[in-house]
């Protein structure tokens, strides 16, 4: 199982790097989906099949489909491909890469000083996840749902199209 863990981790990292360097949005999204699938395999190997299934259903199966949907609707042409190519110039990515490399070095140093082994034996199933969500973390869950409701109402408000005629008639007949 350790080999599965390392192979899927390598796939996840490689897919993420490829995702960042693609110039076409749909190709980048496809690599991101592969990366999410690899993370789901990692969750499964670590003994969290429920989280793995949710990762697939919610992230890979729903949110990414919405991303692809929006990209398809926009149907970006060659112009955006050129703009994306310009973004890959070294002056754009060297700064963030150096900062990220510092964080990575810190992380490797901490791991080298006796980190946590990747494979844990405990399996956390749906029952445990459900009990902890609706037990100690109940307030967090409720706050999140209220936040989502707020987002939903806001999106509906932004998306609802007012008929343009009504405002004009109001202005001309005060």
């Amino acid at each position, binding site marked *: 199982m350790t080999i599965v863990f390392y192979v899927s981790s390598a796939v996840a990292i490689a897919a993420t790097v490829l995702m960042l360097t693609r110039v076409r949005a749909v190709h980048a999204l496809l690599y991101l989906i592969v990366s999410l699938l690899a993370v789901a395999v990692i969750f499964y190997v670590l003994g969290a099949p429920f989280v793995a*299934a949710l990762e697939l259903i919610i992230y*890979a*199966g*729903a949110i990414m*489909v919405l991303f*692809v*949907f929006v990209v*398809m609707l926009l149907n970006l042409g060659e112009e955006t491909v050129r703009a994306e190519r310009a973004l890959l110039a070294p002056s754009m990515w060297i700064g963030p890469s150096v900062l990220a490399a510092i964080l990575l070095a810190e992380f490797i140093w901490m791991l080298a000083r006796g980190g946590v082994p990747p494979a844990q034996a405990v399996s956390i*199933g*749906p029952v445990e996840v459900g009990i902890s969500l609706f037990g100690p973390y109940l307030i967090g869950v409720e706050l999140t749902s209220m936040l989502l409701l707020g987002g939903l109402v806001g999106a509906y408000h932004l998306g609802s199209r007012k008929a343009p005629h009504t405002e004009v008639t109001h202005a001309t007949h005060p």
Partner: protein
Amino acid sequence: MTSPYPILSILGILIVTLTLAAGLIWLERRLLALWQDRYGPNRVGPFGLLQVLADMIKIFFKEDWIPPFADKAVFVAAPAIIVVTVLMSFAVVPVAPGIIVSDLDVGLLFVLAMSSLGVYSVVLAGWSSDNKYALLGGVRAAAQMLSYEVFMGLSLMGVVLLAGSFNLTAIVEAQRNLWFVAPQFLGFVLFLIAGAAETRRLPFDLPEAESELIAGFHSEYSGMKFGMFFVGEYLGVILISCLITILFFGGWLGPVLPPIVWFLIKVMFFIAFFILMRAALPRPRFDQLMSWGWKLMLPLALANLLITGAVVLAWRS
């Protein structure tokens, strides 16, 4: 966790599902003909059974054409995705006691996950073809399958509540006294509709509506790549029929006959029902489809879940 003969189960399920999927082409045409008062294919072999073979030879020898303006890698990958995801789902389908590839604890969620990944096949096919009809088909498919997936999952949660498990074998075992179709009739109807929408069968075949979009998302496909979409669709029908059987009609449970025979009888019944739906129902308008899904089916699924939860809670306490 796994079956006693894993390799045998894998081979058996693969061979049976793929043969059945090919055979369905003949069955569907004959049944449609029967219900529409005509003959259907009856020339090649006994009852026209060898029509399947003739069709397959034809489709293998057709020119496999990739349009020069298409996004090649995605164009080639798209038809494979649908077949792979549906076949993966069959891994957790318990055909009879011991005949299962992997008895996952989160089997039902795995099936839902695979079905939600199957959307990419249609969407990417539509996008990579770089053709306005294909793109429209892909956009429709994304919107339709995303909307109907929401209450597809919700409609099954009543069954999960009653069985107390996501494991498909445990769900079948929980129906020894009473099939879940009785306490979960609303859930069954919702799942049937969502299942038809997920497989993009008539009356939910708007992504490939021939009268308006040529062939929708697979307009540019030919040869065996088109064949993969076809096989994927029939595999999807078989999968949804298997799931209905397992979740609502007691899977392999039944008197006298051996379990596997009961399972096949029930599955064939629902496959025939899907074909009957195609023969009988017209196609709705796309806005009707969307408003139906979000304004009627989703509230019904939520109400079903709420009431089931309340009843189960009252029963246990």
